[in-house]
């Protein structure tokens, strides 16, 4: 047998008390595509960061073509032919494509950058693998898909023979993702070796030759794609059958929130283009779409932190003006923000302060400008008890909570008051399977109690499981709704690509 291109031997990495990688060994052959499958927190990204020299492993070693790679040196990894495509792109938006690609590729102390030679090389590579880009475009002006191409080109420019892609489809539409996998297969055919990290069973099955399943920092299984099934992989990945709660049929009530022809402009750019929807009591309306298509503007508009440029908004049939956060909160509209750490909590403040901050002016928590600390702490205690928030007391800083517990705190402060409407943006993003189930259960419970829920999510499975009706958001436009019962993945895929007329046709052709 030939020497594998890449061999990871017994790598362990510990953060504090958390063993992120536990004696992991993996091999990769030339021309092979391996998928590293695992949940969030399974240790995939840590392992790749060790491989790429961002972290020093506590034990183990890495061999490339049988030669040991020095640890903790990204430059050595690059030189050995390892290229990394990060999930959050490592690019500078103020620099050009060529500059992004060229950084660090030349001797630092030389008199001139070899710009023209570099441009030639870049164009040659982009030709060879069909990755078209304009070398002189400013990176910030490119679409997300194009930026990912630059990220891949950057690795190839450094003569990478081993390419590592961290959740490469997280930011792509289904169609872009399909295109990406075609490119990856072409690369493998030309002799490159690829590892891609994923938690999506579908793409792992279609794109990889071999699948390595990681759970709690350990390799738990290795399968050929042809010899396994989605069901088996799912069980291996989670380790137990976690049953996400399932939606029961319900009878939606009156229309709680209605948007008609709403347009939102930020700095002259239309983020939402004449969108319309109706949200009824006791139902979940799912908004699917690839991130960056206007979800943030929609969530902020309904959360009271953004004003609309035109259009009407009806709250229980009453037309309303632009709402501020205080109005939204006092109208019993709960809000779960997209970014827990940025908007959901103020990490350096106490849990109780985070619990009451949004209604601090209400008589329950303050009187004539003086904060009622006791009431705040009591409220926080109730949330901690009712919503099972672990890892903190009312007085400890919110930053110390894990993602799941932070989300429970946010859910708690919103659902405790039985809101009439709930705006939930990516409520389960980045949580482990147990926490996801808890969040879903809470949302369904609120639905049972008659809350009208707008669920904005990129996770198709989540929306299919929870939503009664589904609309897609693409480029700031909102598709017409489809009933969850008739929505299957292919049709939703078309909707998310903005082809909702195609989606209708497909529907009628059947």
């Amino acid at each position, binding site marked *: 047998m030939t020497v594998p291109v890449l061999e990871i031997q017994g790598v362990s990495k510990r953060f504090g008390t958390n063993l992120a990688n536990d004696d992991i060994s993996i091999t990769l052959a030339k021309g092979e595509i391996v998928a590293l499958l695992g949940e969030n927190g399974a240790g995939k990204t840590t392992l790749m960061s060790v491989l790429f020299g961002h972290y020093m492993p506590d034990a183990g070693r890495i061999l490339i073509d049988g030669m040991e790679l020095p640890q903790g040196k990204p430059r050595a990894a690059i030189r050995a032919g390892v290229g990394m495509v990060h999930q959050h792109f490592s690019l500078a938006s103020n620099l050009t494509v060529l500059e992004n690609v060229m950084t660090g590729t030349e001797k630092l102390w030389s008199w001139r950058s070899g710009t023209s030679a570099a441009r030639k090389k870049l164009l040659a590579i982009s030709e060879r693998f069909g990755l078209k880009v304009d070398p002189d475009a400013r990176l910030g002006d490119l679409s997300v898909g194009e930026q990912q191409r630059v990220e891949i080109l950057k690795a190839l420019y450094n003569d990478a023979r081993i390419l590592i892609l961290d959740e490469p489809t997280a930011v792509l539409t289904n169609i872009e993702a399909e295109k990406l996998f075609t490119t990856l297969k072409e690369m493998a055919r030309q002799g490159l070796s690829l590892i891609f990290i994923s938690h999506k069973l579908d793409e792992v099955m279609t794109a990889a030759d071999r699948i390595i399943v990681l759970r709690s920092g350990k390799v738990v299984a290795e399968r050929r794609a042809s010899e396994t099934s989605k069901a088996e992989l799912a069980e291996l990945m989670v380790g137990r059958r976690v049953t996400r709660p399932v939606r029961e049929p319900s009878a939606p009530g009156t229309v709680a929130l209605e948007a008609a022809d709403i347009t939102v402009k930020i700095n002259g750019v239309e983020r939402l283009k004449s969108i319309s929807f109706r949200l009824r009591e006791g139902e979940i309306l799912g908004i699917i779409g690839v991130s960056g298509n206007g979800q943030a503007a929609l969530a902020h508009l309904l*959360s*009271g*932190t953004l004003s609309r440029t035109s259009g009407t908004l009806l709250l229980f049939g009453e037309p309303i003006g632009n709402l*501020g*956060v*205080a109005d939204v*909160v006092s109208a019993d509209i709960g*809000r779960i*923000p997209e970014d827990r750490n*940025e*908007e*959901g*909590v*103020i*990490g*350096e*403040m106490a849990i109780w*302060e985070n619990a009451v*901050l*949004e209604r*601090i*002016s209400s008589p329950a928590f*303050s009187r004539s*400008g*003086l*904060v009622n*600390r006791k009431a705040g702490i009591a409220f926080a205690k109730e949330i901690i008890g009712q919503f099972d928030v672990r890892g903190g007391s009312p007085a400890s800083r919110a930053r*110390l909570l894990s993602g799941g517990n932070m989300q429970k705190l946010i859910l708690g402060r919103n659902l405790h008051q039985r809101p009439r409407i709930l705006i939930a943006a990516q409520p389960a993003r980045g949580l482990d399977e147990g926490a996801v189930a808890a969040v879903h259960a809470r949302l369904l419970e609120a639905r049972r109690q008659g809350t009208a829920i707008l669920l904005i999510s990129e996770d198709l499975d989540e929306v299919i499981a929870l939503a009664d009706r589904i609309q897609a958001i693409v480029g700031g436009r909102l598709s017409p709704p489809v009933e969850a019962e008739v929505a299957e993945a292919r049709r939703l895929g078309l909707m998310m690509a903005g082809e909702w007329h195609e989606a209708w046709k497909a529907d009628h052709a059947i």
Partner: protein
Amino acid sequence: MRFERREHRPLYLLIVAPVLAVIAALALSGILIAIAGAPVLDAYWRILTGAFGSRLSATETLTRATPLMLTGLAAAVAFRARLWNIGAEGQFYLGAIAVAAASAKVLGDLPAPILIPLLLLVGAIAGMVLILIPLWLRLRFSVDEVVTSLLMNFVALLFVSMLIDGVLKDPLAFGWPQSQSISDHAMLPKLIARSRLHIGLVIAVALAVIVHLMQSRTVFGLQSRAAGLNPSGAVFAGVPLGKTLMKVACLSGGLAGLAGAIEVMGVKGYVTTDLSPGFGYAGIVVAMLANLNPLGVVLAAIFTATMFVGADGMSRGLGIPTYIADVTVALSLLTMLIALFFTQYRIRR
């Protein structure tokens, strides 16, 4: 070697940190004193006795500490909300000149019980007006307020210089640029007879307590802290960011303006362009040494004043330039920053 964030911040570190920082700063300045050829311990002993050795020197130190408490509070409230008001020096001067102008031109004839509070208010308002310019530029054009508030200091000082050289010039000052003196009955009452110590000290300490209560107990305090720690989180929670910053700015500028007013009404009686030996800038150090805690500001201001007053006497005795006090104070800012860092991080190998 790398730094790792502490999960829990032990409480004792918050008390130990400033003490260690001051000791480190004194040790470093000690090296400078030694290089200059003077006995280090003797020098520090002279500083201590110079500042607290007699009744007179002790009152002098507290007199010096009074404006430092107010400028320190000004910096502390602003920094807490991540509003980088470095313009306390200019606000101090504007507060001072506003008092001189109001007393000389408009209000001077009012009886003291009305005049004194009114003049203090005038001084505070003048400070507020000055800080609103950098704040407006930040909110409207997103200009970093550090540089603008710094530049405003120079504008304010030239403005004061212009007034005391022109409309407010004291004709009896033999041609020196000096403002007309404020009315005698506008002077703040003395706290201790036969000293310069005035009631301003009480005002400053009371304000420190009030600011402390405001920050820890009021909605405004909670909201301004939120705005400083995480602006987008604060906005999401409904904190009116612009309004909160405006209030914080007014409080900060008002305190600095008040410092100027009190210095004129308590000590000098008139305004010159050397009224402040850098009270505004020293206020930044005071605030940092206190870790932005309003009550800590009182202690930090007394420490800083001790250095300044004590260094005068020590300088005369040992021939060490009085600037050693400024060096020590500046160094203690740097050592305090480092000490604060280690309350949040630990070293891991």
